[in-house]
C-alpha cells in the first residue's frame, strides 16, 4: 500500500509537470489540477498510517491524525477557487487572442 501510494503521487506529479509545460493553455490548466491533486495526496499520506479510525470515535491508540485531512480539505477549496479563476482567464484570453497556443499570447513582449 505504501509503495502504491508513493507511485500514485509520483505519477500524478510527473503527469502534472509534463502537462503544465505544454504550449496548449487548456492542457496547462489540466496540469495545474493534476499538480494540486498530487500535493493533496502527499499531504494526506503525511498522516495516513498512524491509525485507521476517525477522531473522537475509538480508543486513543487507533485514532488517525485528523490534521492532514483538515489541511487537504482547505487546500482543495483553495485550488478549486484558483482553477475557476484560471478557466475564466482562459475564456478571456481565447476570445481576445483567438488561440489556445500560449506562444501566441505575447502582447507583453512588445
Amino acid at each position, binding site marked *: 500500500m505504501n509503495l502504491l501510494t508513493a507511485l500514485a503521487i509520483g505519477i500524478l506529479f510527473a503527469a502534472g509537470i509534463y502537462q*503544465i509545460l505544454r504550449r496548449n493553455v487548456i492542457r*496547462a490548466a489540466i496540469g*495545474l489540477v493534476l*499538480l*494540486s491533486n498530487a*500535493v493533496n495526496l*502527499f*499531504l494526506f499520506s*503525511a*498522516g495516513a498510517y498512524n491509525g485507521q479510525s476517525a477522531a473522537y470515535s475509538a480508543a486513543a491508540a487507533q485514532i488517525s491524525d485528523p*490534521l*492532514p485531512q483538515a*489541511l487537504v480539505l*482547505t*487546500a482543495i477549496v*483553495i485550488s478549486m*477557487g*484558483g482553477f475557476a*479563476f*484560471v478557466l475564466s*482567464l*482562459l475564456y*478571456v*484570453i481565447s476570445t*481576445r487572442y483567438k488561440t489556445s497556443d500560449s506562444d501566441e*499570447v505575447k*502582447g*507583453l513582449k512588445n
Partner: protein
Amino acid sequence: MNTWLLLLPFLLPFAGVPLTLALRKRRKIQSVLALGLMLAALGFTFGLLRAVLTTAQPVSIQMGLWQAPFGITLTADPLGVFMTLMSQIVLSAGLIYSLGSTEKVVQYPTYHPLFLALAAGLTGAFLTGDLFNLFVFAEIIVISGAVLTAIADDAYGVEAAYKYFYISTLASVFFLLGIGSLYIGHGTLNLADLAARIASAPSAPLTMAGMALLTAAFLIKSAAFPFHFWQPDFHAAAPTPVSAMLSSLVVKVGVYAFFRMTTLLFPHVQLLKTLLVVVGVAGVIYGGFGAAGTHNVKRMLAYSTLAQIGFILVGIGWGTPLALAAALVFTFNHALVKAAMLMLAGAMASRAAVKSASFEVVVGVGKHHPFAGALFLLGGMALAGIPPLNGFISKLMIFWSGVEAAQYIPLLIIGVASIVTLTYVIRSFIRIWFEPNPKAKEKAGDRLLAPALLVFLSLLLGVWAEPLVALSQWTAAWLGDPAFYIAAILR
C-alpha cells in the same frame, strides 16, 4: 484590550470585504468606507505596536481557545507588528490614491472589496503564528492581486494575471509540499513549536527537503533573481494603485518569510543564508541593469524592486543583528518610496495623450506639473540613496553592516550596482520633465495627494530617522534569540 488590538487590524479590512460588496451600487460610500476601515485598522496597529513596545512581549491569541501547539495562533511579535505597520500605511495611501484616480478600474463594483481582501491577506500573513495559516493568507493575496490585475485598464492585464497566477500556483505547490515535509518530520505546524522541535532534532526526516521547498516557494513570492521573470510584466500591467501595493508590499511577504526562516525555523543552516546573499547580489546587478534598459517608467520601477529586494536579501543573509536591522529599515523605506514612485509614474501616465507609462508617450508630460516633478525627484533620490531622504539611511545601514560583517566582495558588487540606480532615476526624470514634447498639454489626471504623503513620510524618516532605526534595532535584537518567541507562544 490587547486581544482586540491584535484582532482589529486584520478584522476591519476582512469585514470590509462583504460590507463594501453589499454597497456596490453606491460607489462614493463604498470607497470612503474602504478608506475609513483601513485608516481605523492603521490606528489600531499603532495601538498594537505600543502594547508590544511597553510589555516587550508579543500579543497573541489562541483561536477557538485551543492551546498553542494544537490550535491556530495569531501573534503580534515585534517583526509581525513592524511589517503590519508598514503595509497598512502603504495600503491606506493606496486607497487614498484610488479615490482620486481617473482609471476605469476603480469604478468596478468589486474593486474595493478585492483591495480590502488584499489588505486582510497581507495583515493576516504578517500576524499569523501558524505555517499553514500563512499559506492560506498568501493564497488570498495571490488571488486578489491576480483578479485586480486581470480587470486593469491595460489591455495586457489579463495576460499578466495569467502569467502571475500560474507561477504563483507553482509556488503554492512548493509551499504545500514544504509544509507536508515539515509535518512528517516534526508533527506540528505552529511556528514556535516547529522551531523548538527543529532545534532539538535538526536531522529528522525531510527537514532539509522541507526547507528547500519553502525556500523555492518564497523566492518565487519575493520575485528574487532568478524567479523574477513574471514580476516586471505583472507590476507594470496592474492598475496604478494596485501595482504600487504589489511592488512595495506583496513581494515583502516572501521577505518576511525569509526573516522567519533564517532567525526562527532554521537559524543553524548556514547554507540558506549563503544562498540568500548570492541570490540577492545577483538580483541587485540584474535588477539595476534591467531597470536601466527598459522603455516604460512602471517597468523600470518594477525592475528596481528586483534590485531593492536583492539588497534586503543580502542583509538577511548576513544575519548579524546590525544587518537584520538594516534589512528591516530597508524593507520599510522601500515600501514607502516604491509605492510613491509607482503612483507618480501612474499619475504622469494618466496625464499623457495616450494612457501609457511608456517613455515615448510620457516624454515631456511633466512640463505643466512641476509639483509632481519635485515629488518624483525626491522619490528618485530616496531610491538611489541620497541624503536627506530615507533611502540614504537604509543604504548606509546595509553598507555599514557589510563592513562590520567583513563581507567585502558582495559589498563591493552591490555598492557599484547601486550607482546604476542613480543613472536610471535621473534619466527618467529628465525625459519626463525636461525633454520638449509638442503633444503634451495640460490635462487633469490622478490626484497627487497619496504620493505626496508618502514622499513627505520618506523625507521625514530621512531627516528624523531615529525612531525607525531604534525600532528596527529592537526588532533585530528580538529576532536574534528564537527562544524568546518560542517561550512567549508556548508558555
